[in-house]
């Protein structure tokens, strides 16, 4: 089963209660992975408001995940 690292920042970090975790998962893409994690941990942000980064690059929510990927779900930003 592919091993994926998930990083959390800001509201997602607080709702998850940690900054990073390693998961063995069969979810095929970030969208499915987020849906599963949201159900498990009660994330309040809907999937459509998120962007995702894979290995520190912006990516698509339906990009295939492969073993070793680092996935970051990016809540709506608010810099400045």
């Amino acid at each position, binding site marked *: 089963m592919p091993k994926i690292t998930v990083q959390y920042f800001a*509201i997602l970090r607080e709702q998850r209660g940690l900054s990073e975790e390693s998961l063995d998962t069969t979810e095929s893409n970030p969208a499915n992975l987020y849906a599963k994690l949201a159900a498990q941990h009660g994330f309040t942000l809907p999937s459509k408001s998120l962007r995702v980064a894979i290995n520190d690059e912006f990516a698509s929510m339906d990009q295939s995940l492969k073993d070793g990927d680092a996935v970051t779900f990016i809540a709506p*930003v*608010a810099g400045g």
Partner: protein
Amino acid sequence: MFSLTPFRIEDLPKPAAPSSVGATVIFEGIVRDVNDDHQVEALEYEAMESLAVKEGAKILAQALAKFPIESAECIHRTGLLQVGEVAIRVVVSAAHRKEAFGACEFIVNEVKSRVPIWKKEHYSGGATEWINADQM
């Protein structure tokens, strides 16, 4: 140069301009005391540093390609900031003022909408709230 920094931006030197520069426009985004009628005591910024620095550099490169400017810099703080502190500074230098204004505003807008930095408001009374995280 796009950088995230824990230092007080106010204390950093501004970049020196080459002699072909006729206009410098500086934007400073400052923590203010009120937002949506809430009394703000402090702001907490959190960044995904790896991607923020990359995306910030991309925005500056786009500004340099899109506008006839000489240089563009952006510094964004992270961590806890008090009211009155500078959270972001953008400095654009160009031969002429019109392009310096246009590029500076472009960079600020893009940073605010694209760079993975998040902001949590701390209100008087102790409540906190992540900005932009509720109304999607």
